[in-house]
């Protein structure tokens, strides 16, 4: 049997010459002193291979349509055998790849490996990094949950800020004027057809050039004879890949790729949050406002990519030692430090994801409003409308909003606009409450003072502030989730009563005449307890 197998292989070799090809691949001479830093490329290859396989299987179950995208992802995560691990491998694999790609880039930067004659290898590498980021961007939309939808609304609006062509590029990305069915379809096509094709072409070119010029090796050439790639260097690659793979599987088995509520284009209260690898760009937007916005959205990223592309020609000296290239080394460290800092600030400042099973201040305030006479005048036992919560509510957000702010719009002649009509914040609170009812989430039991604070916050503050994933931030109004870390109750009490007493330039309205002293104190005490 064994000899027959060998016979078949001999025949195959005589027709294809595969043994010589394999030998050529495996016997690549590796310079003495080529260390562990030179395993990063192999890690990337292995991770990309896993993305290809898991991606192909995910495609068997995924539907790129707003009607079924979310349900199909939910089915993969919860209904399909091994589906949870499959999706998590793909989800966490993406983050692993971004980290490995950046590490690989930094290794090449510090080791000066981009220099002559490896300029084109470097160029294909920078293109590969852009393709990887393209994968990350397009893949993020596919689950069609709130995170996906709103992050894509932001990223396509960012494209809009580009000078001249911005609006056209944005419309091209969206396949129209809005993020919708056509956006999802084209991003899916880019994610599973166009980018993989580009990736294969670029990666093969990159590897071919790597073989053509040989691995750059240590910064200062060492004496000693070179070794064949297999098994002397391959063992290092293998051990590192094994470690990374074990880590990835651990994440996939014990982690949970997030799946927020299904995308809801009418829910203006959702706070968009990008994935961590785009967080630094997102955070940069906070420092460039108004007319300067394109500097952060287009200018700085374009400059960074341009410098990367031109680097082999900007730094042409032959010396590869990072200590003898102070400009490149310093700029790299500064840019990296900047990205890390911005990412850290961004992650720290981004409010947590709203948990659909937890009643936040908005929904608690909404419940209080729904139980007040404003609503119970009609929604009462034996009244003209059913008791709220007694039967299923099928109306959407838009209907409820109209019902609360302008009853004429919904049912002409049924009842006049009430004197004490709800404002925008209170309307949103009631919608949040109705959402909890629709989701079948039982009302929470909480201490009376927390509930009182929730009611005040939920019906007054969430037009400008966010807290625990609820509310909308506008202007400079901060997220209040961890307010107690920086502010004491006394200060907050005074600030809420009249901010201009503390800071004359504050734009926050004074609440001293809208709320009574006890309400303000309750809120101040509660916020100061949030660490």
């Amino acid at each position, binding site marked *: 049997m064994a000899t027959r197998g060998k016979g078949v292989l001999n025949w195959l070799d005589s027709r294809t010459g595969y043994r010589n090809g394999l030998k050529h691949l495996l016997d690549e001479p590796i310079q003495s002193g080529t260390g562990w830093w030179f395993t990063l490329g192999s890690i990337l290859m*292995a991770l990309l291979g*896993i993305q290809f*396989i*898991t991606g*192909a*299987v995910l495609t*068997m*179950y995924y*539907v790129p349509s707003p009607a*079924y995208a979310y*349900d*199909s992802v*939910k*089915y993969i995560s919860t*209904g*399909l*055998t*091994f*589906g949870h*691990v*499959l999706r998590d*491998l793909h989800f966490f694999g993406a983050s692993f790849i971004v980290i490995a790609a950046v590490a690989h880039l930094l290794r090449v930067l510090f080791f000066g490996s981009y220099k002559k004659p490896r300029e084109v290898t470097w160029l294909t590498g920078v293109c590969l990094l852009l393709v990887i980021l393209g994968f990350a961007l397009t893949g993020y939309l596919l689950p069609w949950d709130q995170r996906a939808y709103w992050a894509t609304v932001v990223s396509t609006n960012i494209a809009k800020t580009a000078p001249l062509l911005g609006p056209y590029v944005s419309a091209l990305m969206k396949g129209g004027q809005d993020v919708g069915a056509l956006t999802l379809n084209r991003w899916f096509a880019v994610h599973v057809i166009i980018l993989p094709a580009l990736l294969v072409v670029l990666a093969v070119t990159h590897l071919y050039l790597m073989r053509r010029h040989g691995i750059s090796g240590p910064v200062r050439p060492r004496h000693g004879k070179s070794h064949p790639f*297999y*098994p*002397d260097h*391959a*063992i290092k690659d*293998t*051990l590192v*890949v*094994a470690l990374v*793979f074990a880590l990835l*599987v651990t994440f996939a088995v014990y982690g949970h790729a997030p799946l927020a509520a299904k995308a809801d284009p009418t829910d203006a209260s959702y706070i968009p949050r990008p994935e961590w690898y785009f967080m630094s760009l997102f955070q940069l937007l906070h420092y460039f406002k108004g007319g300067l916005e394109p500097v952060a959205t287009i200018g700085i990223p374009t400059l960074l990519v341009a410098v990367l592309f031109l680097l082999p020609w900007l730094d042409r000296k032959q010396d590869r030692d990072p200590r003898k290239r102070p400009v490149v080394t310093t700029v790299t460290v500064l840019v990296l430090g900047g990205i890390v800092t911005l990412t850290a600030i961004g992650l720290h400042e981004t409010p947590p994801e709203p948990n659909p099973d937890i009643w936040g201040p908005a929904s608690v305030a909404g419940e209080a409003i729904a139980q007040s006479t404003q609503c119970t005048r009609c929604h009462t036992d034996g009244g003209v409308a059913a008791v709220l919560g007694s039967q299923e509510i099928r109306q959407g957000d838009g209907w409820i909003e109209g019902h609360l702010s302008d009853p004429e719009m919904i049912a002409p002649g049924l009842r006049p606009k009430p004197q004490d009509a709800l404002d925008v914040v209170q309307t949103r609170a009631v919608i949040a409450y109705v959402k909890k009812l629709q989701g079948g989430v039982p009302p929470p039991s909480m201490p009376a003072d927390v509930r009182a604070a929730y009611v005040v916050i939920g019906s007054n503050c969430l037009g400008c502030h966010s807290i625990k994933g609820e509310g909308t931030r506008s202007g400079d109004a901060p997220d209040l989730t961890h307010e107690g870390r920086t502010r004491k109750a006394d200060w907050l009490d005074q600030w809420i009563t009249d901010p201009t007493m503390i800071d004359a330039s504050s734009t926050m309205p004074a609440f001293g005449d809208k709320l009574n002293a006890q309400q303000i104190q309750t809120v101040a005490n509660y916020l100061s307890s949030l660490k």
Partner: protein
Amino acid sequence: MAEQEHEIDRRGLFRWIINGVVTAIGAVVTVVAGGAIVAPSLKKPAERWLPAGRILGLQPETPTPVTVRVVRREGYYEAVDHETVFLIREPGGEVRALSSICTHLGCHVHWDAKARLFKCPCHGGVYDINGKVVSGPPPRPLATYPTRMDQNEVFVEL
């Protein structure tokens, strides 16, 4: 000479580790990816007793076509099919259910009350009231479905 042998030992060990690691990673990926591909095909169809009408509406020994609403869960999708079965009330009171699908090429048969035969409009397949082939190309009798009664309501298992 001894050094060279030591070198060979070392490389042999490296090869062994490399092969082992590659096999292990391949096995994990194959189990996860392969499992996810194969799993839905191995799932046994759930037992489905579906309501098919009331026994009082059935004429004795006359096949009555009824349309049964069949809901199937296909992953993320809920497929709704309508299948026609013939209910036949026996003299003893029990009810039989016959498939309306011709065993030849899958056309729908109809009941010819005059001839007291099921006839297929496609290729002339003919069955008797028990579903047995009388003439034509059908290779097998019409399929019979299990039935049960629950307070005058007929249930068919599809």
